[in-house]
């Protein structure tokens, strides 16, 4: 048997995005004596997507705006699927959180000429409420947060990958987490009174995707195996303009910012013609889901670019003007060999965000005592669609909440539980599995998985396509189990981690497929060509998946309209309508 190092801590946090770091901070603020450990797959604060946030942070700060407005936009944008209590708490706490970021942590957001915070417009919102720092807001947020957490006395397990949530032997709750120390390749078990899942989900099972390379739905996959239920998993948001540069570059799938379309950029098909006006009156300026869907339809006609996508063109706005207005994007394209200012760049819709996730209570609890969840790993806040700017608000708000709640739980006597050693052993066996198999073509497997999810469970779905997808997934599961690794050096063995990434991604792909099949309507990010109608809002139900991937169970649960009923509104005027101030 392999030797496992064992440690004990009060609070174990998985992930160091907005959720993980805020949890550590707020737990320490509640009680500085707590022993806190952050385990993260990459480097602390340097991995995950919070850092990649471009547009900004939604918060109702302006006297002309209101919590109610923000809330209604969130509910209407989420097509009445959000858990309203969660959405309400998001909107309320965002105000306190952004002020904490500004005032206590030192984020320096952009200002209006009168010195107040500048807030810009994001599609689908009735007010200009997105606070930002240029077009790289995430760097400012996560750097300040990270600098703060560096100064706290917390144990940092960087480059540690969680591989299994370990229940208590007596079934009373969470006992700890099994992980791999990536740098040495050895196993480590951390026993903790409370555990936070903040691994940030991330739809990286699609051919084109935006999240950082360390995100592969590990948290969701572990949660599912552990017995937690996942909601809204069919809701995968696609961003319209991912760079398309061929399968051999990691640049493919990364985002060109939304502002390009907002400023008047054109989307062109393979023959260089605009097409968006054929799909929607707002043409290129329509919301993410509409543009992505239209682009996908256009691509289906076969009128595509050499790489099989479409073009974005800005040159008609004047190359110098474009260079001036979008220096970051122009430079990014230039670095990968494209001329955004004067030429055309190939783009394709790209999988961006998972609205779904582990079912969470208002205090970030899960169905298992001691186990908490926050950020993109959690489901229920956004429903069928996430507003641009609500993602980072979600991770920072609920990360902080989780930190406070975990500290409180410990003050109230949360126990250290004894591990179910059988699960530790099966967790290790699972991770060891590839070393018992002959090396194979993992590259090809990854590409086919990506392709199958993109083609069959992607932007447009039908019962047939999803079933086809499920069939493929079963094959991929078998193939993965037969692909192995040479057991030469386990230290920082990325190929081993590629295998483990695929393992998680295949499991969660099965979940997405199952939820997509269950939802027989089209709303938000989910579009069924065989059920194109939204369906009655009053009877809106959400999907809830549980079980193991070979034996998945999906049920539909009625949404509780605890604050506002479909047809009602908390505001005058129209939620989600473009703000009166913007062009």
């Amino acid at each position, binding site marked *: 048997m392999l030797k496992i190092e064992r440690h004990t801590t009060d609070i174990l946090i998985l992930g160091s995005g907005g959720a993980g770091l805020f949890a550590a901070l707020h737990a320490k603020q509640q009680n500085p004596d707590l022993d806190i450990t952050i385990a993260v797959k990459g480097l602390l604060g340097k991995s995950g997507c919070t850092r990649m946030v471009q547009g900004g942070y939604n918060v109702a700060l302006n006297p002309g705006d209101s919590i109610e407005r923000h809330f209604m936009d969130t509910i209407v944008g989420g097509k009445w699927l959000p858990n309203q209590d969660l959405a309400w708490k998001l909107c309320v706490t965002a105000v306190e959180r952004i002020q904490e970021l500004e005032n206590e942590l030192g984020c320096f957001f952009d200002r209006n000429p009168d010195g107040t915070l500048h807030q810009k417009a994001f599609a689908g919102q009735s007010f200009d409420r997105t606070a930002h720092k240029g077009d790289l807001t995430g760097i400012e947020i996560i750097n300040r947060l990270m600098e703060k957490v560096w100064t706290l006395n917390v144990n940092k397990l960087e480059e540690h990958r969680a591989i299994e949530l370990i229940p208590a032997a007596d079934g009373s709750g969470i006992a700890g987490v099994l992980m791999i120390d990536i740098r040495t390749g050895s196993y480590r078990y951390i026993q903790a009174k409370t555990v936070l899942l903040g691994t940030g989900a991330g739809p990286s099972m699609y051919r084109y995707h935006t999240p950082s390379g360390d995100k592969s739905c590990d948290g969701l996959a572990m949660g599912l195996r552990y017995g937690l239920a996942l909601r809204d998993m069919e809701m995968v948001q696609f961003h319209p303009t991912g760079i398309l540069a061929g399968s051999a570059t990691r640049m493919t799938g990364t985002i060109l910012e939304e502002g390009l379309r907002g400023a008047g950029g054109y989307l062109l098909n393979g023959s260089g013609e605009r097409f968006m006006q054929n799909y929607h009156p707002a043409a290129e300026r329509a919301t993410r889901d509409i543009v992505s869907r239209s682009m996908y339809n256009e691509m289906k006609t076969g009128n595509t670019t050499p790489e099989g996508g479409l073009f974005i063109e800005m040159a008609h706005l004047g190359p110098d003007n474009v*260079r001036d207005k979008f*220096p*970051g994007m*122009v430079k990014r394209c*230039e670095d990968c060999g494209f001329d955004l200012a004067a030429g055309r760049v190939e783009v394709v819709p790209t999988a961006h965000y998972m609205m779904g996730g582990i079912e969470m209570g208002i205090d970030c609890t899960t169905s298992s005592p001691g186990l908490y969840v926050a950020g993109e790993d959690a489901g229920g806040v956004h429903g069928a669609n996430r507003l641009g700017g609500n993602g980072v608000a979600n991770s920072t708000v609920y990360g902080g909440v989780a930190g406070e709640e975990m500290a409180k739980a410990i003050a109230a006597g949360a126990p250290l539980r004894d591990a179910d050693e059988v699960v530790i052993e099966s967790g290790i066996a699972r991770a060891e599995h590839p070393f018992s198999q002959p090396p194979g073509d993992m590259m090809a497997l990854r590409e086919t998985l990506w392709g199958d999810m993109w083609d069959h469970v992607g932007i447009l779905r039908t019962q047939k396509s999803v079933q086809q997808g499920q069939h493929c997934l079963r094959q991929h599961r078998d193939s993965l189990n037969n692909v192995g690794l040479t057991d030469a050096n386990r230290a920082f063995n990325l190929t081993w981690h590629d295998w483990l990434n695929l393992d998680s991604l295949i499991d969660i792909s099965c979940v997405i497929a199952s939820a997509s099949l269950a939802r027989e309507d089209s709303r938000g990010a989910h579009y069924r060509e065989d059920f194109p109608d939204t369906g009655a809002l009053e009877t809106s139900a959400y999907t809830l998946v549980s079980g193991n991937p070979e034996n998945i169970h999906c049920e539909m649960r009625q949404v509780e309209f605890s604050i506002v009923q479909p047809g009602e509104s908390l505001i005058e005027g129209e939620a989600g309508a473009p703000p009166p101030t913007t062009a």
Partner: protein
Amino acid sequence: MTPLNKHQSYFAAIGHRFSGVLLSLFLPVHFLLLGTALEGEANFDRYLAFADNPLVKFAEWGLVILLSLHLFFGLRVLMLEFTSWPATKHLGKGENPMIRRWSSWVIPSVIASAFIGVIFLVQSF
């Protein structure tokens, strides 16, 4: 590991440093010999005769060059540190103009020092 690719301002810094160190080694000697003038003009003239020795001339010539090199490179550092920089974020606009300007100061500094060395030679023979 391959060493860092060397660049003009690196050579400026190294040149500045070597000239500074050599000057520092020479200067006390220079002071001491000058000080021997205390013991009368005769001594001092002996020193000057010694200084007429071609080898010593050659050394002095080197020191004049070192002094002017150190001067030019020193001014360069002072300008970089104490004059104001242009707006510093130039996304996509290439090398920082301040760095470029004071890098282009390096070669003229060397040429100017060499020129001063030539004048010294012309003057002393």
